[in-house]
């Protein structure tokens, strides 16, 4: 373990009404990093955040903050501040009073408060908004005030619980950039919770992928994307073709009736594995040149590329190509060794089928639901 660890979670368990929300979670967080808990609603990410913030006592395990055990220490005695899912701005105070709140309860001298508030307003690009009431601000501005208010009390760690969930897409992207900028300029640790994989990939130094109260994988965004540990991670982050395969020997894998060269090893001979191939890593070639051949069943124009669903021996693959193909075309597919990622079989194997049930609309709907359900994600 590195010596600049700021938070260490050891064997954390949390249950509600006999239901395990978090099971034996171990995690350390380095000082100054932007770490994201990513997972579907109900995966335990918000619960983990609440344990760190001190809003929730774990049933088992220790929360260690700079080497000191923090169990039982109330939220305001930890050097942690939280940005809540919904804007919890005080409606009876203006922007200045909201940001000054934490400083006023600490009874700091007035001049110092004023200086700090000015500084914070500049940081979040809200100069001149001092006298505005929260209700007169847009959603994005309100969230900036919330951020300024939390940062005004100089926390060592800022916890952010889906802070951009209520913003529209464009604003959300702007705020992502801004949050990252603020985090870098202050150099403090941000712990971010989201179910939006794109948000996690674009902002984080480290991503913690969670499901069913357990950490599925910890790694940098590129690690998580390129080297998913199991079918859940592969499916949750980006689009993936996950097929059953057999490891013939090191660096040789067989799936979909063809034997491929790959880069992975360390499996038993003829071990059954899950094979992940990202849609953008598949090359469309002529039938003769193809390692696999299949029939195009669906084509969707996505702007940068076409999303093509191909039936290969009854399994529907998704591939992304800049060349247009027509439904009914028989095409050949080529997969380079570095495009193939091998995973050990896990409890998630076989849970994510092919793209036969895939529809854009359904995907978006489930996204919306995830946004609504976060409340249950206690």
């Amino acid at each position, binding site marked *: 373990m590195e010596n600049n660890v700021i938070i260490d979670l050891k064997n954390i368990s949390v249950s509600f009404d006999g239901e395990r929300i978090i099971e034996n979670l171990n995690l350390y967080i380095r000082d100054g990093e932007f770490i994201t808990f990513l997972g579907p609603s109900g995966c335990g990410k918000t619960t983990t955040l609440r344990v760190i*913030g001190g*809003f929730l006592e774990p049933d088992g395990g220790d929360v260690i903050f700079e080497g000191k055990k923090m169990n039982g220490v*109330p*939220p*305001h005695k930890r050097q942690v*501040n*939280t940005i*809540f899912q*919904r804007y*919890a701005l*005080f*409606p*009876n105070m203006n922007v200045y009073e909201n940001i000054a*709140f*934490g400083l006023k*309860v*600490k009874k700091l001298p007035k001049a110092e408060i004023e200086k700090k508030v000015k500084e914070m307003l500049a940081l979040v690009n809200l100069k001149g908004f001092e006298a505005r*009431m929260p*209700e007169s601000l847009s959603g994005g501005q309100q969230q900036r005030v919330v951020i300024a*208010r*939390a940062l005004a*009390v100089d926390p060592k760690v800022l916890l952010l619980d889906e802070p951009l969930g209520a913003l529209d897409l464009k604003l959300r992207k702007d705020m992502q950039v801004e949050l990252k900028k603020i985090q870098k300029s202050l150099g403090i640790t941000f712990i971010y919770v989201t179910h939006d994989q794109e948000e996690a990939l674009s902002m984080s130094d480290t991503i913690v992928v969670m499901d069913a109260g357990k950490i599925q994988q910890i790694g940098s965004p590129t690690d998580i994307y390129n080297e998913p540990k199991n079918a859940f991670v592969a499916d949750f982050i980006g689009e993936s073709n996950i097929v059953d395969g057999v490891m013939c020997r090191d660096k040789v894998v067989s799936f979909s009736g063809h034997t491929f060269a790959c880069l992975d090893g360390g499996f038993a001979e003829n071990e059954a594995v899950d094979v992940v191939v990202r849609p953008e890593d598949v090359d469309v070639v002529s039938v003769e040149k193809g390692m696999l051949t299949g029939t195009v069943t669906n084509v969707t124009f996505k702007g940068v590329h076409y999303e093509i669903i191909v039936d290969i021996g009854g399994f529907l693959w998704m591939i992304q190509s800049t060349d247009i193909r027509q439904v009914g075309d028989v095409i050949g597919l080529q997969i380079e060794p570095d495009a193939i990622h091998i995973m050990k079989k896990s409890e998630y194997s076989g849970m994510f089928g092919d793209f036969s049930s895939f529809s854009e609309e359904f995907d978006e709907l489930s996204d919306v639901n995830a946004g609504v359900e976060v409340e249950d994600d206690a």
Partner: protein
Amino acid sequence: MRKSVAPGGSRANLIPYSGWMTLFVLIPIGLVVYYAFTGVNGFTLSNIGWIWTYRKTLWLSVELALIATVLCLLLAYPIAYGMSRASAKVQRNATLFIMLPMWMNFLVRTYAWMTILEDTGLINSALRAIFGEDFSGLRLINNHGAIVLGMVYNFLPYMILPIYTALTKISYSLVEASRDLGANGAQIFGRIILPMSVPGIISGITMVFIPSISTFIISKILGGGKDFLIGDLIEDYFLGNSGVVNYNIGAALSLVIMVLILVATFFMNHFDKDAKTSGGGSLV
């Protein structure tokens, strides 16, 4: 604020409302004003002057109504606060129990207090059972305390409910946020909860003070008719209980009370101008 007629609607929809208001609010108030400023010889201001004669009665009414309002506030706030923090089931039941006495007639409830408080009433009988027949008993009725008790008992729900409504509107996330920023219990209450419940407090004060200052039944039943309140006085002038019927003086006294309440309410709502979130809804 003036609002234009909703699209698709027409002013015809307002007829029932305007009809009701004209018939039962505007015309009666017009009559009150008319009687207040007229006498046998036409226009006069002398009716209004009677308030000076009855200044002690007026002052007693204000005093008792204020005491009752303050007591209601002190009792209601902790009750409302406890309710707002309780589980949904407890909140429902508590609201029901607060409303329950209101299902009975106001007069009956007040008479019930009489049978409890009077010299041969429930409390004194119980005390005699304990201390023997020689016990002289407590003077619980026919005094200012009994009148205030009657006001507090009858009007307490009107204080609890608006405060409770205002408190339930305060999102718990605000409490969490202020605690997160380092505020302790007293600071959270003083800076967040109390200021945000002001609209409810103002509604409650208005809804308790107005019926308290104008009551004539409570003082009659629990005050023993010894302590005349301004409401009793007005009733007397209209019904002639003390042998004199004078609509003009009665109307003038009513008008004074109305103006007094109007000024008080206006003043109260001024307090409310910062708190934009209205709690139980204000009356003026």
